[in-house]
């Protein structure tokens, strides 16, 4: 290759090796292509599995021709969804009927839940290539990957039975990791019977909205559970919050508006902690009057109000609209006690208490623990991820103490005799018509939190009466199980 050459250019006489420049060009371009091929390889090996599992990827029909849709499992190995062959046809089967309806979702008449968000994964086979090639060549379908959830089947059952025929939602999460341990929304649908009962579900004569996942999409006024954030806002705006005192006589007036305590019963002189424990509306309305509304607004946005929750399931945005420029003092007072225009989803409320339980760090909730191939080999594992850190450890500890008092001396006393120390907050969110929504959010054990719970029961009455007993059953079940 190396040949002596006479430089042709008239000005080029001082060149030693005119080919050197050309070699450099060769190196540069071959280098570019090596990088591109490296990226291509990296994409196919490491990234493609994640990328193609998008609801925008329309290849499910193409994939379904060669892969038998994978199974969905609970954390303890129960089969929540699987495909069986009946009379030569593939049928998707849900052994627990409507118990996991909203988490697992449905496959026919529009996908939802995990059947939707993990659709392409379930239709991707990661068994070994030789076996896959053999299946290809013999026209057999390869088994798709299985999705293993974080759901604890026992807790799910307890939550499902505890809420019974009420409308509402129960969500249980591990506050330190964001793992969802149980998620029930009622009324539900039976994914096995979608085709048969479709007309009925669509007509929805009783206005049950069975396909709505109330846990992530249901927007409720937070009622008194919101006082947790009001407290935090007050603490941040008033460094001497420990000195707060208010004399409660059962009602507070602002112009023509009167805000009453439950049964108009006065609480006497209360400080910040006892205001929360007794869920004193008048004291919090008073705080609402004192707060800087824009700072309050900014604080709720740090807690992801008006934002999409970091979860792959379909979810609604909670909303908080109080702002100085266009909100009245009256509205500020109502907002402070969780009435006003504020709306929150049960999952979001759970994330807020979990943040307190987890020393101020909000974890991203997740439902898929890992994906494995049909032989049990791990394809992908999800690890806990921090979402934001909206409060300090000190603030979390202080709020935790106050929430513990709710259980020891306040509206959550029904949980006091449990063999595990619970901290929490009740709520009764009044509606214009009908009875209040009953709320409870809390966690246990108080010193070293393992689970956090959020319960909402629609249109029944106080948190103490309906939501707290449901939460109690969950704590009992979880900690008895732990003791076994």
């Amino acid at each position, binding site marked *: 290759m190396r040949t002596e050459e006479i430089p042709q250019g008239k000005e080029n006489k001082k060149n030693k090796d005119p080919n050197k420049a050309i070699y450099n060009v060769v190196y540069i*371009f071959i280098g570019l292509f090596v990088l591109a091929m490296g990226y291509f390889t990296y994409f196919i090996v490491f990234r493609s599995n994640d990328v193609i599992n998008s609801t925008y990827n329309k290849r499910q029909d193409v994939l379904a021709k060669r892969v038998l849709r994978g199974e969905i499992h609970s954390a303890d190995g129960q089969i929540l969804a699987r495909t069986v062959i009946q009379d030569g046809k593939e049928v998707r089967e849900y052994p627990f009927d409507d118990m996991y309806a909203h988490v697992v979702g449905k496959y026919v008449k529009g996908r939802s839940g995990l059947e939707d968000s993990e659709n392409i994964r379930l239709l991707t086979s990661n068994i070994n290539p030789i076996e896959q090639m053999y299946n290809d*060549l013999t026209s057999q379908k390869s088994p798709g990957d299985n999705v293993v959830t974080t759901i604890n089947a026992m807790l799910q059952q307890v939550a499902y039975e505890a809420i019974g025929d009420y409308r509402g939602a129960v969500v249980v999460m591990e506050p330190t990791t964001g793992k969802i341990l149980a998620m029930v929304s009622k009324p539900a649908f039976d994914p096995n019977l979608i085709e048969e009962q479709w007309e009925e579900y669509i007509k929805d004569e009783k206005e049950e909205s069975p396909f709505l996942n109330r846990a992530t999409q249901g927007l409720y006024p937070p009622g008194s559970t919101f006082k947790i954030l009001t407290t935090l806002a007050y603490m941040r705006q008033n460094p001497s919050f420990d000195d707060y005192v208010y004399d409660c006589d059962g009602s507070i007036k602002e112009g023509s508006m009167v805000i009453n305590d439950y049964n108009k019963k006065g609480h006497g002189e209360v400080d910040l902690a006892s205001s929360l424990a007794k869920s004193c509306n008048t004291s919090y309305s008073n705080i609402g009057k004192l707060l800087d509304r824009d700072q309050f607004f900014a604080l709720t946005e740090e807690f992801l109000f008006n934002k999409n929750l970091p979860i792959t399931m379909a979810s609604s945005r909670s909303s908080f609209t109080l702002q100085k420029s266009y909100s009245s003092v009256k509205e500020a007072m109502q907002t402070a006690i969780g009435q006003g225009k504020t709306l929150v989803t049960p999952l979001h409320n759970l994330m807020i208490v979990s943040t307190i339980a987890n020393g101020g760090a909000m974890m991203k909730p997740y439902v898929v623990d890992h994906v494995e191939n049909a032989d049990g080999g791990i394809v992908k594992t999800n690890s806990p991820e921090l979402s934001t850190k909206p409060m300090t450890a000190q603030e979390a500890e202080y709020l935790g103490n106050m929430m513990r008092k709710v259980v020891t001396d306040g509206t959550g006393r029904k949980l006091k005799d449990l063999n595990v120390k619970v901290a929490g907050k009740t709520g009764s969110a009044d509606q214009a018509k009908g009875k209040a929504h009953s709320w409870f959010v809390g966690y246990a054990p108080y010193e070293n939190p393992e689970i956090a719970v959020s319960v909402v029961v629609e249109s029944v009455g106080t948190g103490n009466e309906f939501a707290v007993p449901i939460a109690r059953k969950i704590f009992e079940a979880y900690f008895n199980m732990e003791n076994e």
Partner: protein
Amino acid sequence: MNLVIELTKYLLILLMGIYTYYSFQVLRYKKKVQQDKAYRIMTAAIFAIHFIGYFTLYLQILNDKILLLYLGEVILFIIILALYQTFYKRISRLLLRNMLMLITIGFIVITRLSYDKAVKQVGIIGFTFLSCLIVPEVVNKISWLKKFGWVYGVIGIALLLYVLFAGTTKYGATNWLEIGEFTFQPSEIVKLLYVFGIAAMFDEGTDFRRVCAISVMAGATVIILVFQKDLGGALIFFVTYVFMLYIATQKSFYLFAGLLSGSGAAYIAYQLFYHVRVRVMAWQNPFGYIDNEGYQITQSLFAIGTGGWIGMGLNRGLPTDIPVVDSDFIFSAISEEFGGLFAICIILIYINIFVVFTNLSLKQENSFYRLIAIGFSVMFTFQVFLSIGGVIKFIPSTGVTLPLISYGGSSALATILMFMIMQGIYLRGSAGRKEQGHKGSSEVKSQEGR
């Protein structure tokens, strides 16, 4: 039948692997016997892939028109091989085969995407090959081509200006001319004029004043393309010039200065033009803009990711979901249905062409031809890089075609013409040495055999 189609998938990858292997091996072979054997195998691989591709399509679509098109293409290939290898005994057989291989893949994929477009494409490519038969001879024999440097440059600029004011807009860029029934992309032909012009002008000298003058001409061309919103085109022209300048002057200063000012210009373009920012946005976070700006690239990634290494099998994927799949995004369609391994082989074949091209440049003693060879080499290779890099999300997508594979008459015509000019230079290279009677000449010649 399923078995057959699945089997062909593996067979296609195997054949492609064999072809690619020999395309590099043959560069090392010194003996004519070895080379002849390698070329026979490569020819066989092309025809086998061609047959299997159309056979698989026919099995699934069962349309007799496909058989007809297949037969037409086979006849075309045989004529091309026969004509060129008879008229030009010393033509680069490797380049000729690489072209046919890429064209074969293009034909199969375009037929799979749209039969009508495939018919058009076959017609244009057939016509171009036949009319280009004379080109290598012209380049080889006519030596006054280098005398009209400024003329090439000015004609190029005039053509582009005309398009800028009288052209039509397609996919956001105003770089099409409508002549009767045909739409035509003049910038493809300007590419050739541009390289010819720059090579001819540098051939006269590389003093600073001349460098400035030539740079102004090249810069004007690039700026017109920017105004046409043809980002990919502007980038290709710019990079080609910078590297030609570097080779002509042998000064790395120009290379660095060129690339640096290019980066500066890119930054300014990013600030000035929304359509530039959109490309970068869609590249950085395609899933954030999946409904609009990122739609095309995410669909492309779905295609590549779903295909994996082995591919879904011909006609068994869903590449039609990708907008403009038959031209700019054809690489994704190939990757989805033929598989990632096959796609890597295609990249290797392009690298192979690049190596042959630069080799040509190395062997040229005349700086005019030497510059043309390196200019075309950079132009062709950089376009391939932009095209493939864009669809795999390695770099922002610039919307350029994959030469010889993508659907598109102007691009096919200009690329084949470019290859035939290179063949002419190849003929010069081996002839030149013969006349000089250098000792090492036979060795050099046998680099690629006859």
